[in-house]
C-alpha cells in the first residue's frame, strides 16, 4: 500500500540520462549549454553527441530565443540551466518567442528549491512554478524522483510544444521504478486512503508518504497524490480526492503562493470546495545551509504535512468555514 524506499538519487541525473536516451532516439534533438553543463548534467549529452551540442555561454535570454529559432527550423532544442536563471531571467523570451510562437522548445530548470543548500537564496528558485503555469501552451513537469525525472524528460522531448521540467541538485528518495506509470497531464495516486488527501510535487511527495505513515498510526488513512504534471493539470484525480477525502494538504518546495497549492485550490474551488492547508515556503527567500537543515528550517518535512493534515481534517469536521483549531503550525511542533 505504501511505496517502498528504493534508494536516493538526484532528479538532475534523471534529466541528464533522459536526454541521452532522447539523443539516441531522435536525431533532431539538440542541446544548448549555458556554461553549467556539468551541474545540470547536459554534459552527458555533450559527451555522447558533440555535434548536436552548442555552447551559448552565460546568456539565458539569448539561449532561450536561439532555441526558439532552432525549433522553428525543425529541431527539438533543450536548454538547461539553474531554474533561477532559465525561468524568470528569460521570462519575456519564454512568453513571446517560445510560448506565443508555440515553438517546440524544452527547458530544464535545475537546482530548484531550497535544497540547493549552501549557494543561498539567489540560487534557490522558489517562484517559477507560479509564473510558468500561467503561460499559454506551456507544459510544466515537476518529477518526484530520479526515475520519474528520466521518464518526464523523455516524454517532454517526444511531445510537441513548449515544455519545462523542474529538477533539483540534492539526492532525493527514489520510490518509483521504470515500470511506474507516467503520463503528462496525469497525477499518480501513490497511496490509497479516504480520510485526507496529501497532494505533493517534487521532493515533497515522499514527505507526504512519510506523513501518511504517521497518520496511519493514528488510524487515519491518507491518500497521497504525486502531481508531477503541474500543467496540464489532472483535474479529475484532484477533484476525486477532494470529494472522497473532504480535506487536502498541498506540499511543495516552492512559495505557497500560486504554485501546486494554487493549482489545487483553483481546481477544488471550482469543482469541490474543501479545506486546504498549504505546505511550502511562506513568502520568504531561502538562505545558505545544508539541504536537510534548510528543509527543516523552512518547514518542508513530513512533520508539517502531518500537522497540516490534522488541521485540514479539523476544519472539515467543523464545516468548511470553521475556525482553525491550530492557528500556527509552528506552535504545534
Amino acid at each position, binding site marked *: 500500500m505504501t511505496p517502498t524506499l528504493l534508494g536516493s538519487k538526484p532528479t538532475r541525473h534523471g534529466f541528464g540520462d533522459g536526454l541521452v536516451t532522447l539523443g539516441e532516439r531522435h536525431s533532431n534533438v539538440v542541446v544548448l549549454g549555458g556554461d553549467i553543463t556539468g551541474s545540470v548534467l547536459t554534459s552527458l549529452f555533450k559527451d555522447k553527441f558533440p555535434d548536436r551540442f*552548442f555552447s551559448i555561454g552565460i546568456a539565458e535570454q539569448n539561449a532561450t530565443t536561439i532555441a526558439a529559432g532552432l525549433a522553428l527550423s525543425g529541431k527539438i532544442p533543450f536548454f538547461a540551466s539553474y531554474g533561477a536563471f532559465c525561468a524568470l531571467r528569460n521570462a519575456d*523570451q519564454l512568453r513571446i518567442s517560445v510560448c*506565443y510562437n508555440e515553438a517546440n522548445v524544452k527547458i530544464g530548470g535545475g537546482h530548484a528549491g531550497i535544497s540547493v543548500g549552501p549557494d543561498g537564496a539567489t540560487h534557490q528558485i522558489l517562484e517559477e512554478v507560479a509564473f510558468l503555469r500561467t503561460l499559454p501552451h506551456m507544459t510544466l513537469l515537476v518529477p518526484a524522483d530520479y526515475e520519474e525525472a528520466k521518464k518526464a524528460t523523455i516524454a517532454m522531448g517526444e511531445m510537441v510544444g513548449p515544455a519545462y521540467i523542474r529538477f533539483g541538485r540534492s539526492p532525493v528518495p527514489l520510490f518509483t521504478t521504470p515500470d511506474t506509470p507516467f503520463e503528462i497531464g496525469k497525477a499518480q495516486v501513490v497511496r490509497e486512503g479516504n480520510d485526507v488527501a496529501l497532494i505533493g510535487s517534487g521532493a515533497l511527495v515522499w514527505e507526504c508518504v512519510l506523513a501518511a505513515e504517521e497518520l496511519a498510526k493514528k488510524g487515519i488513512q491518507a491518500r497521497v497524490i504525486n502531481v508531477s504534471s503541474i500543467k496540464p493539470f489532472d483535474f479529475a484525480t484532484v477533484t476525486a480526492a477532494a470529494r472522497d477525502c473532504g480535506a487536502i494538504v498541498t506540499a511543495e518546495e516552492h512559495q505557497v503562493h500560486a504554485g501546486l497549492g494554487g493549482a489545487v485550490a483553483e481546481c477544488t474551488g471550482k469543482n469541490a470546495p474543501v479545506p486546504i492547508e498549504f505546505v511550502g515556503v511562506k513568502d520568504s527567500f531561502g538562505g545558505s545551509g545544508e539541504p536537510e537543515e534548510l528543509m527543516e528550517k523552512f518547514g518542508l518535512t513530513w512533520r508539517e504535512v502531518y500537522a497540516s493534515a490534522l488541521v485540514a481534517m479539523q476544519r472539515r469536521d467543523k464545516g468548511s468555514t470553521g475556525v482553525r483549531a491550530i492557528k500556527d503550525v509552528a506552535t504545534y511542533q
Partner: protein
Amino acid sequence: MSTTTVEQKQSLDFNTATFENRKHKPEEFAEIANEIRRDIIRALVRAGSGHSGGPLGSSDIFAVMYFGGYMRYKPEDMSWPERDRFVLSAGHMCPVQYSTMANAGMFPKVEMGTLRKYGSRLQGHPGRDMHLPGIETSSGSLGQGISIAVGMAMADKLIDKNDRRVFTLTGDGELQEGSVWEAAMSASHYKLDNFCWIIDNNDCQIDGRVPDVMNVYPIDDKCRAFGFDTIVVNGHDYADLMRGFDHFLDNQRNGTGKPTCIIARTFMGSGVSYMSDKYEWHGKPPTEEQAKAALLELSEAP
C-alpha cells in the same frame, strides 16, 4: 474571367517577386517602394493606430531585400521548405513587412485593410499564431527576433548544412536591449556567414533622438568589434542597398565565416515630407486628411 478587383490586379502586377525574376537595376525599385509606402498609409489610416515612421523609412530596404532576388521564396507557397528566412526583430515595423509581402503576392492586398482589426492575420505586432504566409515568427518584444534568426541560421549552417540565407532587421533604438549583443556575439562565435543583420538606423525612437534617450553610437564599430563584416549604406539609395546585400551574398558564397551587418542610414517617415525625420511619427497613424496629402505626395513622386 472577370472579377479581379483593383487590389488583386495590383497584387498580380507585382507578383514578380520570386528570386528567379529579380530586379537588377536600382531604378526598378522606386516604383515598388512607392507602392509599399502607399499601402502602408492606406492600412494605417484604416487601422486608426500603429506605427508610421519606421515602416515608411525602411520601405526602400524592404523593396530591395524582397524584390532584389536576395531573398529566395515562392510567394504562392511560403511553406516551401527551401525558402530563405526573414525575421522582423523590430516587430512594431510590421506594416512595411505586410505591405511588402502583399505586394510580393503572398496574400491578397485587400487584407491590408484588416490591419490591427479583431481576427485579422495582420496583427498589431506579428503573431505566428495567425499563420500569415511569410511571417516566420511572432515578434514585438525588442531584442528577441535577432536571437531567433541566429537560431535559424545555426540550424541551417551547423546542423542541416544547407545554403539558406537568414535575414533579420532591428531598429537602432532596439540596440539598447542588451540581448541584441548576446545574439551578435553568438552569430560571430558560430561563424554564421549565412546570417545578415540589417539595422534601420533612422536615429529616432519614441522619446526622441536615439543618442538623447541612450546613446548607442558608434554602431559600426560595435558591430565590427562583435565580429560582423559591417557595411554602412544609404538606406534610400537602391544602388547602395544592393551593394550591402551583394556584400552579404559574397560573404556566404565565399564562406568567409563572418556574419554580415548592413547599417542602413534612413530617415524615419521618408517619402512623406511632413513626417520625414520626425520622431513624433514613430508610433501614430496619419489622420484622413494627412493620409490624403501623403498619398498625393507619393503618387506624384518619381
